[in-house]
């Protein structure tokens, strides 16, 4: 019995990574509701613009712009959502992300007083941000045209105000957060490019769940491990839809907890929006210095932090820089041909084979971490079946400790690096994390796997790239990482010390992303949980 998800009712940003469809620029706009009636009318006016989750089968006809909407707890309250419904939300959501900072490690360099002003309201500590409208587009002009439509809707609803206070190249008081995929370089894997500011290829794996409407082949590497050969479809099964969409069975064979009435939460979900600043200068200088000492060199060190080479090749399958480069040297031109629709059938087949190698792996042949460190970012965020530690008969299913900790990643980089020797430029990633249960999924991963290491046997070690290594003193910090050696070749482990904090939180909050059905009931003010 499989799950059927009505994708017409789910918002598009939940089931689609828009960037894969060529929508590579974005604006994130935030609003405050002063007058509930105006807020509801604003929502009603936005609904016709909202992009649905319906699959885009004809790639030549994909929309040029996508729009979606989400609400904080205070936002829902200001729209007169009934108390009973509000009380049905879990406390992570009702407290909001800022109040959860001790749990998720937004302390020290990530503490809210350094966040963009839009997230800090001087008057009270209640959430000030009520509504998030995200606009994704192919080009700036597509964004701008949709943005102007929204400005007209705003003007027609004077009880709603747009919040300013985003920091960017233009200053401290921008009216929205812009984001854009980085322009391609010859080393990019994707076309036009899936790079981020440290130079890593990003967004390679697609988390695949039942009913998501994506290409079924994406289950390989994107679903949950079955214990079978991970290079083949037999090694993977779709994750339960309820891990990402409320009102559907989840990996524990039940509906995830959700506020009532059922029509309110069904097909909705939660998104954690996080603005993550990247200390580009500290990263490059640490990589240069330590990379000069690291026996296999700087690129290999960068690969050990992430679990993938910066060109995207996974360490566990391509343990040497040479093999990784050879792989991408063949893959990248094929990708360009496929994207520009100039590939021969043979080339298409070869491209498919190679693309699979980016994701179709697990860690069964690397139980000592000699290839991909236990503490690397990728192995922490998506351990696949590695938390069995090789004991394949111990747990009920191979992914028992990771199937309930998966998330969908959406979002884009923002800003650009004008001076790679500096930390203080405007550059980072806008991360949108989709999950049905904020505390079980996002917060758990953030706390136990990003800022701690016990589940990997790594005591208190945080993630090298995203971990909070404390407040940096100059270019030094409190971060450490052991890069495993190899008992077969007698290569000893390598120790990275004094790692500075590379990524800092600069803003964000938790949003409920309702179904279209729910949006209409919010707009009409007719939610009744009686």
């Amino acid at each position, binding site marked *: 019995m499989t799950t059927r998800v009505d994708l017409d009712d789910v918002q598009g940003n939940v089931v689609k990574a828009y960037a894969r469809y060529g929508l590579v620029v974005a604006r994130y706009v935030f609003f405050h509701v002063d007058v509930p009636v105006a807020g509801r009318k604003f929502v009603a006016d936005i609904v016709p613009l909202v992009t649905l989750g319906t699959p885009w089968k004809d790639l030549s006809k994909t929309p040029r712009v996508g729009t979606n909407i989400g609400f904080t707890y205070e936002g829902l309250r200001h729209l007169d959502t009934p108390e009973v419904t509000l009380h049905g939300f879990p406390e992570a959501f009702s407290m909001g992300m800022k109040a959860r900072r001790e749990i998720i490690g937004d302390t020290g360099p990530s503490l809210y007083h350094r966040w963009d002003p839009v997230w800090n309201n001087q008057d009270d500590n209640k959430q000030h941000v009520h509504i998030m409208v995200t606009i994704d587009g192919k080009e700036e002009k597509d964004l701008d045209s949709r943005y102007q439509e929204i400005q007209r809707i705003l003007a027609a609803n004077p009880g709603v105000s747009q919040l300013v206070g985003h920091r960017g190249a233009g200053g401290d008081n921008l009216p929205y957060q812009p984001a854009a995929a980085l322009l391609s370089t010859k080393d990019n894997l994707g076309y036009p490019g899936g790079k981020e500011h440290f130079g890593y290829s990003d967004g390679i794996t697609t988390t695949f769940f039942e009913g998501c409407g994506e290409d079924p082949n994406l289950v390989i590497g994107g679903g949950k491990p079955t214990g079978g050969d991970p290079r083949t479809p037999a090694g993977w099964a779709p994750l339960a839809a309820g891990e990402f969409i409320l009102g559907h069975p989840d990996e524990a064979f039940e509906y995830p907890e959700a506020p009532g009435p059922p029509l309110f939460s069904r097909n909705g979900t939660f998104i954690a929006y996080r603005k993550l600043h990247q200390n580009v200068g500290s990263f490059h200088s640490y990589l240069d210095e330590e990379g000069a*000492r690291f026996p296999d060199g700087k690129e290999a060190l960068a690969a050990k932090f992430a679990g993938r080479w910066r060109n995207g090749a996974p360490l566990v399958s391509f343990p040497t820089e040479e093999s990784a480069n050879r792989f991408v040297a063949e893959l990248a031109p094929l990708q360009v041909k496929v994207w520009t629709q100039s590939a021969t059938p043979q080339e298409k087949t070869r491209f498919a084979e190679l693309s699979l190698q980016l994701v179709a792996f697990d860690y069964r042949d690397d139980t000592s971490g000699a290839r991909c460190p236990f503490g690397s970012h990728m192995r922490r965020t998506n351990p696949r079946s590695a938390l069995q530690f090789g004991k394949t008969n111990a747990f009920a299913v191979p992914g028992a400790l990771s199937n309930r900790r998966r998330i969908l990643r959406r979002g884009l980089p923002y800003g650009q690096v004008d001076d790679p020797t500096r930390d203080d430029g405007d550059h980072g990633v806008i991360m949108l994390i989709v999950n049905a249960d904020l505390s079980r999924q996002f917060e758990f991963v953030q706390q136990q796997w990003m800022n701690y290491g016990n589940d990997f046997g790594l005591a208190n070690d945080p993630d090298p790239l995203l971990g909070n290594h404390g407040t940096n003193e100059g270019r030094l910090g409190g971060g*450490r990482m052991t890069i495993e050696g190899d008992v077969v070749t007698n290569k000893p482990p*390598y*120790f990275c*010390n004094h790692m500075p904090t590379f990524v800092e939180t600069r803003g964000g909050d938790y949003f409920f992303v309702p179904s279209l059905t729910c949006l209409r009931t919010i707009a009409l003010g007719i939610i009744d949980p009686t």
Partner: protein
Amino acid sequence: MANKSGNAYALTVLCPILRGVPSDSPAGNSGQTYTALLRNVLQTLHVNEESPMAKVPNTYLCRFWVLSDVPYQGKPAFLEHLKSDYLVFSSNFHGELEPYLAGMWKALQEDVLAILWHCVGHEAVRDAKSFIEYVKKCQVTTTFFFNGSTDEPLVEQLKNLYLKQEFSRFAFENQGKSASELQEAFRGFVQRTQPTNLDGPTWAPGAYHLDRVEGASK
């Protein structure tokens, strides 16, 4: 023997608590039952390295709580009640029961009596021997004990942890040294950390701050 797993012992004790209100309550506590008074004592005990239990040799982890009644599951389960409250003491420790209890009496005699004052039959407890007898009367057999850790003496566990922490620092700080520098540094490490000396330096029992874990054991 169900109470043991290797050298680790699972002691489970249910001490019946005196019912009602003590007639000889200290001033300011009148009207409170023995149970309430006992809870107050338990909830305000010092914690971490200042815990009284840190003085009881070989205590890995232990806890106190009050069993006030049995939980009702709802119809068709019976509704039933306990006639007394019980002080539940559960301790995981290294070694045999009698030496452990003797060690507890020796380190905490007054504290033990202060707690047992709330319990039935405490008048019988006068010395180590009668304390051990009392505890055995209150002991319930552990049906199944799962040891997910080790079963060494506590002082060894603490010394091991100290060495893990110190060697971790050593490994990170001495990377890249020449062979003779490294050997020299390691000799210094061995001298400083004294790996076979369980008395010190080592982690202090119950200590919970990086600057307070290390020190000679008590």
